[in-house]
């Protein structure tokens, strides 16, 4: 996509404008009186944040913010809010002023540090001129993947991502512990709950039946394409989960649970993280460091493979294989955790209906 914007400064101004819009949204959120308004404002906030991230040259983060921030968060917020009271009572002044003063103090404390922060967009600032630049220069030689963000995410700082995947597993375990009580009993959710969407209307089922395979294909595209363009394990996992959730919304949670029972979903989450860790162990067995993808393939085997054109003759098949492997593990973990969370909330909604109805 060629850019029509003339000068680099225009980008900065546009970013500043979008940030003002974001700040406005936060102000609106502060004053909101109903929970649903808050959730919608939060969703708009995430989408505008995704737009702002695009302008700030962070496509991967924009992608994740849109899918995880706007998509999944809004869904589970709605799932939880459906069953709770909508109106937000106003807070008593007594309990308001002390935290308000604390936040003001934090704000002033941070604002004091403003003068030493690097100028907005300054290429010579310590972050951009030191490690950031090293990554840009070393990626073709070390890893050979064009998308430096995925290279750093998966290979240079692969340990961070392993930690993060276990954060996702922890969230999945936590949600299943808290809300999973009724789910893994043998009889899945008693009556068909499709969050009160008129099930079976031809338009939706046809559209869904057409869309779900495309979404799954797109998810795998995003996974594989992670090294070249924006994308990667997290985004792919969320998109895959979105497909499953669409199926649940249209055809009812019971159908989806019959296709993908909770036990399987829980095991996939664990398998995803296990896969990621085992790639690390394989690297150790092959004599490299933990998560050192160069050690994955023996040099003799790697010599036989065609060298990638981009990296000027260096073959990085070990790195490419490693990155793809861990991204698959991450996708598996993210997709199954998001699905498990949806099952937990959907299962709970039906219970609250019975409670509400009873």
């Amino acid at each position, binding site marked *: 996509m*060629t850019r029509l914007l003339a000068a680099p400064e225009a980008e900065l101004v546009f970013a500043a404008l979008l940030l003002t819009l974001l700040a406005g949204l936060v102000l609106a959120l502060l004053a909101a009186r109903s929970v649903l308004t808050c959730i919608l404002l939060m969703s708009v906030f995430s989408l505008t944040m995704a737009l702002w991230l695009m302008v700030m040259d962070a496509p991967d983060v924009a992608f994740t913010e849109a899918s995880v921030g706007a998509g999944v968060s809004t869904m589970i917020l709605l799932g939880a809010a459906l069953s709770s009271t909508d109106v937000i009572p106003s807070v008593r002044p007594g309990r308001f002023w002390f935290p308000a003063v604390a936040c003001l103090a934090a704000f002033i404390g941070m604002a004091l540090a403003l003068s030493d922060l690097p100028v907005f967009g300054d290429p010579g600032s310590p972050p951009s001129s030191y490690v950031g630049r090293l990554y840009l220069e070393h990626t073709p030689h070390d890893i050979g993947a064009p998308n430096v963000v995925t290279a750093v995410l998966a290979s240079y700082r692969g340990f961070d991502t392993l930690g993060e995947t276990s954060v996702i597993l922890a969230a999945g375990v936590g949600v299943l512990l808290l809300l999973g009580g009724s789910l893994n009993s043998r009889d899945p959710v008693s009556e068909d709950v499709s969050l009160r969407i*008129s099930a079976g209307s031809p*338009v*939706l089922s046809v559209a869904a039946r*057409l869309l779900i395979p495309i979404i799954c294909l797109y998810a795998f595209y995003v996974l594989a394409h992670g090294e070249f363009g924006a994308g990667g394990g997290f985004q792919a996992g969320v998109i895959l989960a979105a497909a499953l959730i669409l199926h649940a919304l249209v055809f009812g949670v019971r159908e989806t649970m019959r296709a993908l029972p909770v036990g399987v979903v829980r095991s996939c989450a664990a398998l995803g993280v296990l896969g990621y860790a085992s790639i690390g162990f394989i690297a150790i067995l092959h004599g490299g460091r933990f998560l050192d993808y160069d050690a994955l393939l023996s040099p003799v085997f790697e010599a036989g493979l065609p060298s990638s054109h981009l990296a000027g003759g260096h073959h990085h098949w070990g790195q490419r294989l490693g990155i793809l492997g861990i991204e698959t593990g991450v996708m598996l973990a993210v997709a199954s955790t998001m699905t498990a969370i949806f099952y937990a909330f959907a299962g709970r909604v039906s219970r609250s209906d019975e409670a509400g109805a009873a």
Partner: protein
Amino acid sequence: MLEAIAWIGSAFIIAAVGLSIAGAVGVLRFPDVYTRIHAASITDTGAASLMTLGMLLMAGLSPAAIKLCIVWLFIMLTSPAAAHALAGAAFGSGHRPILGDPRRPSEDET
């Protein structure tokens, strides 16, 4: 020749912006749920596809053009279905459309 197509593309985008503004105003001003859903779907379907076509024209013959076509197809498939689902849900949860002139309270006001 390419310049002309690019300008047409820009015209398409400006039209799309006009449409989305109209949709936004519609969502704010229309009296009941269904008209508001209609206005929202204008932005969702009309403006988005116009914008995509505009970019398609500006992108000319390049891999990006193919991707834009797929995006346009996707929008064409999902947005109307979304509007339909929204209307179905509204109807399912008991919202009845206001028939007749909104300014005069009609007889069968529920």
